[in-house]
């Protein structure tokens, strides 16, 4: 059954909410009252329930199966965390209540901050950024502010070609010129290339580690040293931190700033696009520039700093404010719940299992699919390229869409850009051995099928999804971004 739009079934005079409107008062709206109708159809509660239940049934989700999106870390989302985030003492608390009435909320932020500092080995944390990219911006602003405090105004940022798109976008937003570092043959960054590009105009390097090819940058210390020598800062994209929690601390690798995608590493549900949270951990050098509000740790005590004036009393010089309030409290609760549940032992085990699972997939597919950097150990995700599809008439996209018919969400495609036709698979620690075996068997079957020339299975895929392949080009050429009421049919037609 097709599900119509609410604008097609809803009616402006129907509502699914009963509200008592008092009549015993005199409006004080002056001349600002709205005159034209808004045109917002309503649905009664039973109709609304069905509309959204049916819509949801057209989605794929982690709770339904393996979701091997490399770099996106689709792992299990414990419902305990959802329950905790809904405790009235958290969910029903206003950000501007007097601090005496939100002591537990502030304490929660402080506790989570401590966990982040211990796991990363850094000096300080800015909790307020609202997502990974926002965290990047925050970290890079701290770097820019630190340079300014030194009286410098550098113009360039180094970014490897394998970087997430947000890295160059962030650097550009801050007015930096983006200089691309080429990858060496094994997919990692060569310290020599970095040294070559470093000069006194380089403000920072933005490096993802483990990188987007699923490899740990083994020369990271050397790179960090070179960067620091040049008076620049080392920004680490922490999107892949989930591979090394409990195995290594970024602070001991020379990192000056790193955002943490709480929603990836510590499991907030992705919610069809968000929300996430992107706290930024900072080195000693950058700590004084953290934006307000922030938690200041001093030994065992933690103090909540709301304004620049308060910050100054401690000798800090915040570069500003990233968002209206305190950041993504809802995600903080979930992340702390996740961390407490795992503990130091569980977090380490989760990293190990994530890496183990990814390597198991590599080994299971190495003979049939192509590994751009050879059959060597990877971290939590494994990168294939499309050379195994050569001469089959099947593209990377076709291959991915055929996975849908087998009941799987496709892996990340065409990213990272550093290899041709990339296929990036991240199973996460949430998969059982049986699940991995079934996934490997399915992919093997698909590869064999492509090689045997059964191209129809791919080029027309998906066949068994709520929609067949969608025309994205048409959508972009003449964008239809909202529903427009059709012209009323002429009187004759209606009769």
């Amino acid at each position, binding site marked *: 059954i097709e599900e119509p739009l609410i604008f097609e079934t809803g009616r402006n005079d129907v509502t699914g909410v009963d509200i008592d409107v008092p009549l015993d008062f005199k409006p004080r709206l002056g001349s*600002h009252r709205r005159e034209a109708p808004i045109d917002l159809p309503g649905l009664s509660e039973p109709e609304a329930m069905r509309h*959204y*239940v049916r819509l949801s049934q057209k989605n794929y989700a982690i709770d339904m199966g393996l979701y091997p999106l490399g770099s996106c870390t689709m792992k299990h989302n414990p419902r305990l965390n959802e329950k905790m985030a809904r405790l009235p003492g958290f969910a*029903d608390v206003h950000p501007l209540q007097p601090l005496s009435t939100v002591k537990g909320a502030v304490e929660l932020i402080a506790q989570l901050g401590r966990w982040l500092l211990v796991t990363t080995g850094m000096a300080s944390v800015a909790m307020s950024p609202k997502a990974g990219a926002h965290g990047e911006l925050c970290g890079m602003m701290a770097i820019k502010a630190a340079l300014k405090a030194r009286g410098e105004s550098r113009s360039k940022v180094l970014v490897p070609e394998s970087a997430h798109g947000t890295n160059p976008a962030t650097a550009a937003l801050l007015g930096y010129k983006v200089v691309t570092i080429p990858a060496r043959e094994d997919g990692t960054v060569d310290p020599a290339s970095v040294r070559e590009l470093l000069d006194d105009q380089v403000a920072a390097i933005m490096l993802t580690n483990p990188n987007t090819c699923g490899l740990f940058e083994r020369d990271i210390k050397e790179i960090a040293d070179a960067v620091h020598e040049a008076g620049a800062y080392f920004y680490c994209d922490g999107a892949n931190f989930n591979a090394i929690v409990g195995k290594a601390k970024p602070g001991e690798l020379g990192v000056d700033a790193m955002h943490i995608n709480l929603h990836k590493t510590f499991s907030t549900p992705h919610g069809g696009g968000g929300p996430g949270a992107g706290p930024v951990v900072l080195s000693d050098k950058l700590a004084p520039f953290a934006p307000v509000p922030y938690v200041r740790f001093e030994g065992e005590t933690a103090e909540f700093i709301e304004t620049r004036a308060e910050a100054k009393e401690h000798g800090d010089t915040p570069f500003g404010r990233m968002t209206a309030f305190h950041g993504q409290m809802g995600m903080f609760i979930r992340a702390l719940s996740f961390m407490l549940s795992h503990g130091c032992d569980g977090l380490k085990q989760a990293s190990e299992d994530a890496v183990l699972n990814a390597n198991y997939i590599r080994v299971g597919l190495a003979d049939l699919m192509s590994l751009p950097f050879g059959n060597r*150990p990877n971290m939590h995700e494994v990168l294939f390229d499309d050379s195994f599809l050569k001469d089959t008439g099947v593209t990377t996209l076709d291959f991915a869409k055929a996975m849908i018919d087998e009941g799987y969400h496709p892996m990340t495609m065409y990213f990272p850009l550093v290899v041709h036709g990339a296929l990036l698979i991240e199973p996460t620690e949430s998969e059982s051995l049986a699940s991995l075996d079934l996934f490997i068997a399915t992919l093997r079957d698909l590869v064999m099928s492509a090689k045997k020339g059964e191209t129809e299975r791919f080029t027309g895929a998906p066949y068994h999804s709520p929609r067949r392949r969608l*025309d994205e080009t048409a959508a972009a050429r003449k964008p239809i971004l*909202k529903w427009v009421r059709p012209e009323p049919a002429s009187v004759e037609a209606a009769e």
Partner: protein
Amino acid sequence: MRYLPLSDQDRADMLARIGIGSIDDLFADIPEAARLTAPMDLPRRKSELEVERHLSRLAAQNVPASSVPFFIGGGAYKHHVPATVDHLIQRSEFLTSYTPYQPEITQGTLQALFEFQTQIANLTAMDVANASMYDGSTAAAEAVLMAHRVTKRNKAVISGGLHPHYRAVIRTMSELADDTFDILPADPTGAEDILSRIDNETSCVVVQSPSFFGQLIDLKPIAEKAHECGVLLIAVFTEVVSLGLIEPAGTQGADIVVGEGQSLGNPLTFGGPYVGLFATRQKYIRQMPGRLCGETVDADGKRGFVLTLSTREQHIRREKATSNICTNAGLCQLAFTIHMTLLGQTGFEQLAMANHAAAVKLAGMLEGIDGVELLNETFFNEFTLRLKGKDAEAIVDTLADKGIMAGVPVKRIDPVSKDVEDLLVVAATEINTDEDRAAYAAALKEVLA
């Protein structure tokens, strides 16, 4: 560990299959000196019951809005959210799905986005809306950056009626992008002369209505002057419910409308996650930040929806993107659109009226108190009191001790403005009862006496 499906036997079998002796072989690229060998200095795993107890203890140290007479607004509002909303957004298929990059198996998320975009466009009377930003404050900052791109100018005029935190976020975001600002002083009465600040160097003028102080602002003359000078008018709101009753910025000539959508569908949660709303004119869509969902057809010719115009986005455009935003407020946006669908025009207008009524009644009770001056001539559900000569923050703290959440003392969130120490911004919503209002009036009277 309850979340990890592998057993020790599984792990051993897998290592054997991979052909290595130890899990640490897979971590060999980590410089040896940096490898952690000892456990981190953190507690070990806890049972679900223990975690629940730990977090419940923290939660119990906070005072929930529902448990007291509650009048705090200032950018986040306590409203009643139907139980259906939370039920639906918790459905696994919505909750644990990713950004809909594979449209064939995410039509649920996509159609809901398309409906959301339409709701926001209709609500603001604008041509197009995006698929949500982090929150109102970051949406406002993105709007200023967008105006910079559109006009190729870099001076923003900021009204004194704008939420102080929004002002700070705009400044932080664009200062480092080398924008400059003309910021008007705090304007509790809506009397500022902003027209004279707009000139041919200006990229945009940012005005909030209802203002941070609750005043309703006539945007038409500002739009006129702005358009004369080639300047974009950015209209801001922090209380989306106001749009049920007051004239939308779109019909008043705004070029970009941004706002906070938390009021619908989303709990307060100490400030986040919220949902930023962003709408603009058709001609600017390729300069818009954020994600967009568009209509198309599938291989069988059936209507379907996809993310579109991604050529503006960071994952495609990298350093040439219109914004670095990637993860957005998907689930909060879904909560918003479900709540809005339940309301419909009828319910939404009733909700707005109930809010306005609550504020009118409250204002009537408070403005009669000795030592209290109501500064607003017009307002929606929020207004500003001058507690003549008193320290508003101290009074709010005193009232909190008496179990009443009295409002936002302006000085707390705007420490730099002058003459605001005795100003208190008070919000009323449909959740307030007659008893709540009476308790507030009585307590305030007592404290000021």
